[in-house]
C-alpha cells in the first residue's frame, strides 16, 4: 500500500543528512516520499558526491524539472539500490532570468540524458554538461514546451538532413577508415522508431549514439491536462504499450493514492497484483519473441510461439478488463470492476493458462536458450557490469541480469506482493544471455504470483469483495504537495513525480521511464563489439519507444 515512508524511522536519518550537508542545505522542501533539501545551483556536484560517497545514495532515480512562476527547479530523486525505501530529494532552484545550474553528470552518468530532457522541455541549462542539446524534440525547435508561456500555435520547422560522421575528422591520419551508418528510424531491428547513429571501423562499432524523440507524444503534457480522478488513467497504457498497461497504470495509481492518502481495499490489491503479473508475462513474451527475431531471424517458430502465448494472456486480460491492450482498468483507489461472472470460469481459464505454462517454458528453453546459435550470439556479448548499471540508473531485468538485486516489488513493497511467496531473479552473467534468461525465469515467478492470487480470489468471502475505496468525485490534493512514487514495471523502475497546484489537475506530472535510462547504457554495451552484437544488445535491452520518448 502506498503510505509514505515511515516518518519515525526517517527522522534519525534526516539528522544525519542534515549534518552531512551542513550549510549547503539552504532550506527544507520535503516531499511525501522523502526529505528534500534545497541547495544552491553551484553546489550540486558537491552535494550529490557527498550523498553518494558518504551516505550511500547510489541510485539517481529521476531528474524532474519544472517552472514555477518565480523560478525554475530541478529535483534529483536519489535512493539506494540496497534500500529502496531510503530516499532523499535534492531541490535546486534557479532564477527565471538566468536558469543555469550545475550538471550532475560527473557524479551520475545517468543525469546526462535526464538533464538534456530538462533542457529540451523546460529550458534549464546545465553547466559542465558534456553535451547539452535537445534530446526529444528536433534540434530546430523553438521554445521549451513544458516551460511557462509556450505558444503551441507557433509554426515549427523540422529538417531532413544527412547525418555526418562525427569522428571522421580525428581518424583522418589513421590507416583504417570509419564508416557512418544510420540504423533507423525506420528499421526492423530497432523495435519502433529509434534512430541509432553508428560509426563503424570495419565491423567493429566505435561510436554509437541513440537518437530518440521519434515518438515523443507529449505524454506529460497530456497528463497535466487531465483531471486526477479519471482523465489521466488511460494514458499510462500508452507509455509501455506492449500489453504492460496495467503495470504502468499502477505507477500512476500509486502516486496519486499516496498523494491523496487513499487506502486501497485488499481485495482490489489482489486483483491488481494478479492482473499486473499477467501483463508482465505478456510483455516478457514479446521481448523474447522479438529478441529471437533479432538475433537469429526466427520469424516462423519462436516469434509465432510467443505470440500464440500472448494471445492467451490477452484473452484472459480481455475477459477481465474488456480490452486487449489499452486496459484502463485501474481506478484511483482500486479497480474498475470485479472479476467477470461466472467467476469460476474466469479463474478456470487463468488456471488453464498457468497449467500449460511450464511445458511452454520448457519448450522455449529447448528451442531458444539451449540453442547453440543463440548462445553464440548472446553469451559474452553486450556486457555491462554492476557498477556501470548503477551509474546509468538501469533497472529491471537489465540490472538483475548484471547481478544487481533490485526489485521494487520486494524492496519497496506495494500491492499484495509482500504476502506472497516468490523470488527475485538475479543472474550474474552481465551479458545478453543473462538478460534473456532473467526474463524467462521472471515469467515463471509471475506465474507463481498469479497462482497464489487466484487461490486467494477463489476463497475470498463474498461480502468482502470491495473493488474500490471511497474516493471523492473530484480530487484536489493540497497545493504544493509533492511526491515521487515508483513501481516495478516490465522494464524496470517506473516512477511518477506529481506536484499538485491545488486544482483538480496536476501542476507537474513527470514520468521516469525505465527504458529511457536503460537505453542510455547502450553505448557501454556495444562500443568495441561487432555490429551484429549491437543489434543483439539493443534487443536484449527490451526497449519500448513509447516509454523512452513518452
Amino acid at each position, binding site marked *: 500500500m502506498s503510505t509514505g515512508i515511515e516518518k519515525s524511522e526517517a527522522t534519525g536519518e534526516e539528522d544525519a543528512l542534515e549534518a552531512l550537508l551542513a550549510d549547503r542545505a539552504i532550506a527544507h522542501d520535503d516531499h511525501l516520499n522523502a526529505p528534500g533539501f534545497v541547495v544552491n545551483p553551484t553546489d550540486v556536484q558537491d552535494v550529490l558526491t557527498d550523498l553518494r560517497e558518504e551516505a550511500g545514495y547510489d541510485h539517481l532515480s529521476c531528474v524532474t524539472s519544472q517552472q514555477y512562476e518565480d523560478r525554475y527547479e530541478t529535483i534529483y530523486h536519489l535512493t539506494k539500490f540496497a534500500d529502496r525505501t531510503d530516499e532523499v530529494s535534492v531541490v535546486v532552484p534557479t532564477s527565471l532570468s538566468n536558469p543555469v545550474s550545475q550538471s550532475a553528470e560527473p557524479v551520475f552518468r545517468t543525469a546526462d540524458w535526464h538533464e538534456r530532457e530538462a533542457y529540451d522541455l523546460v529550458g534549464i541549462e546545465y553547466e559542465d554538461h558534456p553535451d547539452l542539446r535537445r534530446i526529444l524534440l528536433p534540434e530546430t525547435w523553438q521554445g521549451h514546451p513544458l516551460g511557462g508561456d509556450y505558444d503551441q500555435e507557433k509554426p515549427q520547422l*523540422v529538417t531532413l538532413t544527412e547525418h555526418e560522421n562525427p569522428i571522421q575528422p580525428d581518424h583522418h591520419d589513421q590507416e583504417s577508415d570509419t564508416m557512418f551508418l544510420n540504423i533507423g528510424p525506420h528499421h526492423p531491428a530497432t523495435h519502433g522508431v529509434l534512430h541509432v547513429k553508428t560509426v563503424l571501423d570495419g565491423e567493429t562499432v566505435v561510436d554509437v549514439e541513440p537518437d530518440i524523440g521519434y*515518438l*515523443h507524444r507529449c505524454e506529460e503534457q497530456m497528463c497535466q491536462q487531465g483531471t486526477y480522478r479519471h482523465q489521466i488513467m488511460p494514458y499510462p497504457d500508452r507509455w509501455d504499450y506492449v500489453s504492460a498497461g496495467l503495470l504502468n497504470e499502477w505507477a500512476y495509481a500509486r502516486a496519486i493514492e499516496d498523494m491523496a492518502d487513499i487506502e486501497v481495499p485488499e481485495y482490489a490489491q489482489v486483483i491488481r497484483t494478479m492482473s499486473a503479473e499477467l501483463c508482465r508475462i505478456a510483455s516478457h513474451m514479446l521481448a523474447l519473441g522479438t529478441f529471437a527475431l533479432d538475433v537469429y531471424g526466427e520469424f516462423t517458430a519462436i516469434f*509465432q510461439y510467443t*505470440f500464440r502465448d500472448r494471445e492467451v494472456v490477452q484473452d484472459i486480460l480481455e475477459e477481465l478488463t474488456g480490452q486487449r491492450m489499452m486496459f484502463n482498468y485501474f481506478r484511483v483507489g482500486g479497480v474498475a470492476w470485479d472479476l467477470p461472472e461466472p467467476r469460476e470460469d474466469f479463474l478456470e481459464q487463468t488456471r488453464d493458462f498457468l497449467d500449460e505454462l511450464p511445458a511452454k517454458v520448457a519448450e522455449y528453453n529447448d528451442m531458444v536458450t539451449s540453442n547453440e546459435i543463440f548462445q553464440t550470439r548472446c553469451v559474452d556479448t553486450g556486457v555491462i557490469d554492476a557498477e556501470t548499471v548503477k551509474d546509468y540508473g538501469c533497472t529491471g531485468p537489465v540490472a538483475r541480469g548484471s547481478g544487481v538485486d533490485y526489485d521494487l516489488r520486494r524492496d519497496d513493497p506495494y500491492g499484495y506482493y509482500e504476502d506472497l511467496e516468490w523470488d527475485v531473479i538475479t543472474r550474474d552473467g552481465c551479458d545478453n544471455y543473462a538478460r534473456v534468461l532473467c526474463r524467462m525465469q521472471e515469467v515463471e515467478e509471475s506465474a507463481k504470483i498469479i497462482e497464489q492470487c487466484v487461490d486467494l480470489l477463489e476463497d475470498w468471502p463474498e461480502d468482502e469483495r470491495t473493488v474500490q475505496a471511497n474516493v471523492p468525485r473530484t480530487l484536489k490534493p493540497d497545493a504544493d504537495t509533492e511526491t515521487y512514487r515508483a513501481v516495478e514495471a516490465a522494464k524496470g523502475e517506473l516512477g511518477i513525480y506529481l506536484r499538485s497546484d491545488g486544482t483538480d489537475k496536476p501542476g507537474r506530472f513527470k514520468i521516469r521511464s525505465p527504458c529511457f535510462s536503460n537505453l542510455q547504457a547502450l553505448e557501454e554495451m556495444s562500443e568495441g563489439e561487432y555490429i551484429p552484437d549491437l543489434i543483439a544488445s539493443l534487443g536484449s535491452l527490451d526497449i519500448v519507444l513509447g516509454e523512452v520518448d513518452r
Partner: protein
Amino acid sequence: MSSDDPRQTIHDSTAPSTDTRDSRIGEGVDDRFNSKLREAFGASPFILTKFDKFMNWVRGNSMFMLQFGIACCSIEMIHTYAIKHDVDRYGAGVPRASPRQADVMIVPGTIVSKFGPRMKRVYDQMPEPKFVVGMGSCTISGGPFQEGYNVVKGAEEIIPIDIHVPGCPPRPEALIYGILKLQERIQHGESAPVVVKPYELEEFGDLPEDELIQKLAGEIDEDDLVMRYNWADSP
C-alpha cells in the same frame, strides 16, 4: 518444332486447341476452366483495358506490406500478422523490411513532428502504385494525443491514405477488415488521389521568409529539405 517457325501452327488455326482437353473431360458438365481468371479476361479482344483489370486483380490479391512499426498500434499489427489472425490468408502476409519492395504501408501509430519527414521519405521510396492503410485514431486525428504540442493531427496531413481503420488500437479483426476493403478498392482500380498536403518536404530556400525562417537561417542550408508545421492551421 524448331524455333525458327514457331508461329506456324497459330497461322494455321486461331481456334484454341481443345482436342486433348475434351477427350480428357469426357461427357458432362465441368467448369474447371471457367476460372475467375478467365472471367476477368472474358472473350473480348481489347487486351489493354482488360489487362489493367487483370493487374488490379493480381495486385489486390498479392499485397506486399511494409514492415513499419511506430507506436502502440504496431503491436496489434504484429498480432494481425502472427498466429491466430494470420493475415497471410489474404495474400498479405510477409512484411517487407524495405520500402522499395513494398506496395502497401500500414501506418500504425502516432506521427510526431520529428518523424513526419521520415515517414514522407519512406512513403516516397515505395514504388508506384502504392497504397496506405491508416491504423488507429492517431493516424486519423492524432487520437488521444491530439492536443499535444508535438503531434501531427493525422497522417493524412502528410501522405494520402486509402483506408482508415478507427480504434485505439483497432482489434486485429478490424485491421483485417480494413485490409480486405483495401483489396476491394485496389481491384476496382481506386486509390486515394495524390494532392498537395499541408505538410510537404520543401527546400529551405523556397520557403517564404518570416520570423521563424530568419531565426533558423544560420542553422539550415538553403537546399536542405525541411517540413514546416503550421500548427495554428491544423484541424
